């Protein structure tokens, strides 16, 4: 419902007291014991058909309506994180957890669970190791191992309803800052919390704010970096989709702390749902007087604009992002001057990423000491990771800093399909590196990851198994960065393609061991010589895989073999006649018609026709197709 001007005036909250009064009324109006059905409407679940599930549940409830004493409400929320199990349906207050729900299950859920209080066994999550059926969210290892600070409200609230966010505590931190604290005290609180930027580099947030705050008076800006572009990463998207008010609130606090009256959210145009939810959050916050002039009677004016990015990875670099907001070509510029002195439109500016801003809201609400009590000595708080790749539980996880890599992948992630270990975990996106199984007990924090040759980055975590080739992985990330390099500085524009070409040769079994030494030297030149962090970190994929998997590189070069069976020029597919049942599945899958053989008799692959696509390998149920 669109608020009219008159409504807006009525909705406006003029003080801290009015905000808390409204919050109290909203909370009182909701009975915590009332049955509610929560359907995940994160992008992953929507793609799996959760909108249809919601409709079916509504219809089934309406049909059964007469018999239900109190009609349960259906709430659509942001991402619950357990994306590989979607669509997810959770029934409050018992937190009954149903996974992979289809519209056809709605009737049974209503009849059995809502009316009779029984479980629908087939929809319950099954423990991957024990096979035990688990009824509630809290008992599922994927959730039990997490500590949700940034994601606390996501999956609990309807992101399009500000009242729901207020009930969950939204804007309490901002209200406290604006009405009871001096800007200096706000910065002090953020410094004392030990919060470090979640966008990649881990710069202390409060110190960054202080640098901009020391310019007294004049126009300043705060910006939110929502240009999440790492392959496989969706932390920031989920926060914006699932709890947009946390980001808005963080930016209000930041604006107040440094003396900025305007904020910009730079968000990728490829995130339409995030943009929609953010826009709604901004409209609602304005209507409640939480954005705009004289917020909560504090005399502080602040508003936020949304800028859509056109999908250039380099625009996640802070100086390039600011040029893009200014309407210029998104290319980085040298620092100094730093953005805290001369940033957006040449004015002092603070840029933090989505997760950092969401953390700021929590810190001001719950206190710096509380936050400083989470995590490790030098990496405070929690970190959200997008756990993807060869892992049983694909999804979004939030864990305390310092947790071991093994715990994330093997416990929360439920381990690697068909294996008791991972080969490597890639962290930090294209700028990061690959960590081997030997590092499984590495604490995941900013400094340990850098010491191990990777980085925290914004939170991508790609799990790889023995079927992943490290030369190929390094080649993939270099190819990505080659595409995304802005081309301004020479080491990055010229050097990254050359690195990739060298790896291309390796993957064909060409090259020499001396080429590896040259790779190190060129990588060093690119790291040291590039203008921005894109080029400065581009060689990490090569350097970290060389560090831990040098033998795999050498096998490619010296033995002309790809142990993982990935590099097409170095592998051959064959069919084991002892195992082959002649089921014809591989022959049907082969796009080249390279596989021949009579029904129920062993098949063979014609080497000269084979393009090594691996379709036969994937299609064989008996393990008869071999790759060497």
């Amino acid at each position, binding site marked *: 419902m669109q608020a009219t001007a008159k409504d807006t005036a009525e909705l406006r909250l003029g003080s801290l007291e009015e905000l808390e009064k409204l919050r109290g009324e909203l909370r009182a109006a909701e009975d915590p014991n009332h049955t509610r059905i929560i359907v995940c409407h994160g992008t992953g679940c929507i793609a799996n058909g959760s909108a249809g599930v919601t409709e079916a549940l509504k219809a089934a409830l309406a049909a059964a309506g007469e018999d239900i004493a109190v009609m349960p409400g259906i709430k659509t929320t942001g991402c619950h994180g357990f994306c590989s199990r979607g669509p997810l349906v959770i029934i409050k207050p018992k937190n009954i957890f149903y996974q992979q729900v289809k519209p056809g299950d709605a009737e049974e859920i209503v009849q059995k669970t809502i009316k009779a209080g029984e479980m629908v066994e087939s929809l319950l999550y099954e423990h991957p190791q024990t096979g035990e059926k688990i009824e509630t969210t809290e008992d599922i290892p994927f959730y039990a191992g997490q500590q949700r600070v940034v994601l606390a409200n996501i999956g609990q609230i309807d992101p399009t309803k500000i009242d729901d966010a207020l009930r969950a505590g939204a804007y309490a931190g901002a209200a406290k800052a604006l009405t009871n604290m001096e800007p200096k005290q706000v910065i002090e609180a953020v410094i004392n919390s030990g919060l470090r930027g979640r966008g990649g580099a881990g710069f202390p947030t409060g110190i960054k704010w202080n640098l901009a705050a020391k310019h007294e008076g004049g126009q300043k800006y705060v910006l939110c970096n929502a240009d999440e572009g790492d392959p496989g990463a969706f932390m920031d998207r989920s926060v914006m989709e699932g709890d947009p008010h946390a980001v808005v609130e963080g930016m209000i606090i930041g604006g107040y702390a440094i003396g900025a009256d305007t904020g910009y959210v730079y968000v990728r145009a490829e995130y339409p749902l995030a943009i929609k939810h953010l826009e709604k959050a901004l409209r609602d916050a304005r209507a409640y007087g939480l954005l705009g002039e004289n917020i909560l009677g504090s005399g502080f004016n602040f508003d936020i604009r949304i800028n859509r990015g056109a999908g250039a990875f380099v625009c996640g670099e802070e100086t390039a992002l600011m040029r893009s907001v200014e309407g210029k070509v998104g290319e980085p*510029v040298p620092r100094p001057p730093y953005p805290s002195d001369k940033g957006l439109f040449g004015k002092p500016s603070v840029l933090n990423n989505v997760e950092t801003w969401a953390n700021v809201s929590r810190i001001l609400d719950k206190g710096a000491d509380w936050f400083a009590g989470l995590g490790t000595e030098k990496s405070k708080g929690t970190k959200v990771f997008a756990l993807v790749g060869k892992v049983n539980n694909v999804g979004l996880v939030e864990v305390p800093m310092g947790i071991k890599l093994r715990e994330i992948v093997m416990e929360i992630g439920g381990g690697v399909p068909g294996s008791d270990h991972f080969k490597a975990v890639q962290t930090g996106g294209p700028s990061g590196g690959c960590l081997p199984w030997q590092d499984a007990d590495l604490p995941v924090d900013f400094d340990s990851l850098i010491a191990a040759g990777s980085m925290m980055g914004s939170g991508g975590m790609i799990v790889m198994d023995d079927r992943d080739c490290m030369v190929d992985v390094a080649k993939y990330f270099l190819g990505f960065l080659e595409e995304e390099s802005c081309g301004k*500085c020479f080491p990055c*524009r010229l050097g990254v393609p050359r690195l990739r070409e060298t790896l291309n040769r390796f993957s064909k079994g060409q090259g020499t061991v001396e080429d590896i030494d040259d790779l190190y030297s060129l990588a060093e030149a690119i790291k040291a010589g590039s203008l921005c962090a894109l080029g400065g970190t581009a060689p990490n994929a090569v350097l970290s895989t060389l560090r831990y998997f040098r033998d795999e590189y050498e096998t490619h070069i010296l033995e002309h073999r790809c142990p993982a069976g990935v590099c097409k020029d170095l592998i051959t597919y064959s069919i084991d006649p002892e195992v082959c049942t002649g089921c014809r599945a591989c022959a049907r899958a082969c796009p080249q018609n390279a596989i021949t053989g009579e029904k129920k008799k062993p098949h063979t692959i014609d080497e000269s026709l084979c393009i090594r696509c691996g379709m036969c390998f994937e299609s064989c149920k008996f393990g008869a197709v071999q790759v060497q």
Partner: protein
Amino acid sequence: MLSLTIDGNKVEAEAGWSLLDTARQNGIEIPTLCYHEAVEPFGACRLCVVELRQGNNSRLVASCVYPAEQGLDVYTASEKVNNVRRWILEMLLSECPASSEIREMAAQYGVQTTRFEISDPEQECILCGLCVRACAQVVGANAISTVGRGAQKEIGSPYLTPGDDCVACGTCVTVCPTGAMSARFERVRGVPSVVMARSVKR
């Protein structure tokens, strides 16, 4: 005056000078390609990188954009610096093999040949962007820009068709460090009479 050390020698700099200014004022040579006194420094070619040392820490910065600061310890030809220059020059030899300027500069750093594949033997343009900046900042015509991104980047007028915004002044040709712009000039300039009429009205 600021006091700092370059290659072990004490030098003085005025506030606002870059490290490149400071070095050149003190007779210390630092190679550049994308730098020109007439336009704002850009920090793109990275040939002018110098090493800053502080205790055990060391990092490279582009001297054309890095400001001179009191007490800096600067090295203009350390191994770290020369490694960057040699690689850039070797890669430029394959990227723009037709440029004699690049060949000469590379030879000064002992780089005579390139191990990398040459895709266009006629290419001279190093994409330093000096022509673009001179057109914008000196002439004010903004007739050309870089087009595309990364490896696809090139210099051109809007939509890569000759445009009337070009006043055919030739500044871009003059500032071009490799002479690549003279071959592109005809593809950039449009019809000068239209521009003349406009400037008369003004």
